């Protein structure tokens, strides 16, 4: 029981790190980026190449995955996404689905369609036993890392100058521009960090989520659930939504395996009907 809870939390934390970038682009900037999972997949595959083929240490691989995915995100944002921000949702959907299809086929072409595994150092394998709860070391590490990232993000968003610029840019682009905030650069950096975090999540999660070319399609709905259920007004909402989703999904698969992901999708639809702005949306949200 507690093991399920523990696994659920680590899974949810992972989902949060994967989806937080989307929470900003979709929830705050109102850009429908279905291709978010592609950046996560890029991070995962970069780690596989670095760690398995070249022989980098796991930690280095994960960190590099972050930077590589962030660079990729920045590149795409500056060259392609900027042109689509102002378009209507249908165009955004078409554009990002196109990117997903391209990334799926490209990865399939380069890396093959089979599932990839990252070699995790032996020190991280195995379990702790605390009060009779079996806790995987690797999952514990994920919780710690993702917890730190969450804390860091929250502080960055509320306490730093960049955070206030971003909030200003999101709240009212025109006024923010009038105040001399470089909105384009702010969005670009945010997008890059979000993509980088997705890449980091993809690298860390390759073991738990499974990494193959259809990763962006398989987890697209999960990311969207996190954002829509969590609401886009803060990162606390998506955080709790991820944890709930993680626990719900793990518990659902553990206790009622025949129903599978069915439970999750149904919950999402119900939440969307009940509160279209998300469970944790502020009353005075835009």
């Amino acid at each position, binding site marked *: 029981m507690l093991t399920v809870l523990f696994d659920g939390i680590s899974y949810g934390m992972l989902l949060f790190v994967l989806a937080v970038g989307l929470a900003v682009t*979709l929830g705050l900037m*109102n850009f*429908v980026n279905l291709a978010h999972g592609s950046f996560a997949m890029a991070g995962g595959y970069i780690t596989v190449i670095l760690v398995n083929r070249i022989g980098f240490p796991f930690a280095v691989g994960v960190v590099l995955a972050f930077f590589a995915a962030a660079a990729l995100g920045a590149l795409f944002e500056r060259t*392609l996404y900027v*042109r*689509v921000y102002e*378009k*209507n*949702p*249908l*165009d*955004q*959907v*078409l*554009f990002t*689905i*196109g*990117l*997903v*299809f*391209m*990334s*799926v*086929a*490209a990865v*399939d*072409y380069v890396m093959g369609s089979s599932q990839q595994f990252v070699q995790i150092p032996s020190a991280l394998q195995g379990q702790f036993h605390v009060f009779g709860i079996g806790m995987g070391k690797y999952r514990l590490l994920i919780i710690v890392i993702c917890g730190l990232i969450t804390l860091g993000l929250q502080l960055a968003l509320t306490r730093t100058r960049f955070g206030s610029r971003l909030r200003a840019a999101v709240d009212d682009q025109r006024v923010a521009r009038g105040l001399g905030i470089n909105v384009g650069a702010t969005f670009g950096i945010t997008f890059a960090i979000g993509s980088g975090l997705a890449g980091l999540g993809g690298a860390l999660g390759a073991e738990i989520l499974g990494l193959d070319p259809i990763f962006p*399609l398989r987890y*697209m*709905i999960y990311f*969207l659930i996190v954002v*829509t259920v969590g609401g886009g007004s803060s990162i606390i909402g998506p955080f709790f939504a991820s944890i709930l989703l993680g626990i719900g999904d793990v518990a659902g698969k553990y206790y009622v395996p*025949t*129903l*599978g*992901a*069915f439970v999750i*999708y*149904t919950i*999402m*639809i119900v939440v*969307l*009907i009940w509160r*279209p702005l998300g469970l944790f949306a502020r009353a005075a949200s835009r």
Partner: protein
Amino acid sequence: MTQLEEEVAGFFVRRGRWSPLEIAFWILALASIWLLPSEHLILTETAILALFALSLDLILGFAGIISLGHAAFFGFGAYFTGLVAKYGIVNEPVLALLLAGLAAAALGFATSFLVLRGSDLTRIMVTLGIALVLYELANRYDNITGGANGLQGVDIHPILGRFSFDLYGHTAYAYCLVVLFLLFLLARRIVRSPFGLSLVALKDNPLRAEAVGIPVNARMVAIYTIAAGYAGVAGALLTQTTAFCSLDVLSFERSADLLLVLIIGGTGYLYGGLIGAVIFKFMQDWLANLTPQYWQFWIGLVLVLIVLVGRERVTGWTRSLHHMIFPRLLAMPESRKKRREIAARRGIGRVGGAASDGH
């Protein structure tokens, strides 16, 4: 009748008139039965895709509802037909087709209330979610649906007890084309009626439509239900012509490809789905021959390019096609004359040209 009534009635008559282009299109389609006998298998798929795209056009092009899960109804119709045929409840294709359409429409009606709420984003999520739920259900209850192996043993009897399906798709193509044509006629009738005009109004501005007295929600429910029925018939056709049904009828890719089909052909004038289906199938066939495994990459590239270049510019030709076969209210000769009179009375120059373009 007052003059206004006459004018409006005249407008609907003109709007409903067949243009030579349309007649040419259907003659070509009919001719393909005899002219391209070796291509009937792919043409059958094209006709089914065209019907499916027509269904999406009804909600996207006329009511402005973005759906990322239209495969839900397609798959529902497909499995419905497969199951009733497998268990020998209804083996006659035409009756099964009607029932599948009704069943899918019922599902559409039930889920339409979920689609009414919220913004475009919520709609995208809800439609996607409904399709995923159905996919998951079909996957889990594999004792009924056959799961990943597909539904085996679908026994389809000859159409109306007379025309049996053959290996080369001759019967199947003729059958699909007839169904497509009949449903197209119905769709044409629907969108060119006052009801169809009210849909366009609510697509352009729901708030204003509501203000002039159009029951926005009721209209959306109605068109969503009809479109779901169309998609169900398309799915049923697929099951009947292939005597098989697998999970991919409900897949996300099917919904996404469908959007591309409709975007290629252009939305809002009914022929977009049909033309788009022909282009898409042709393109898919060509790409699949070129790179069997990775054709999806090129499909993705087409999507990205269409958006980057601008949908208006890529499918601009469809717009002129659109006006050729689908006259606009402001393009009515009477109203144009009247506007010119008003303009002259006010002493303004040409109002007509600018106003008829402003949309």
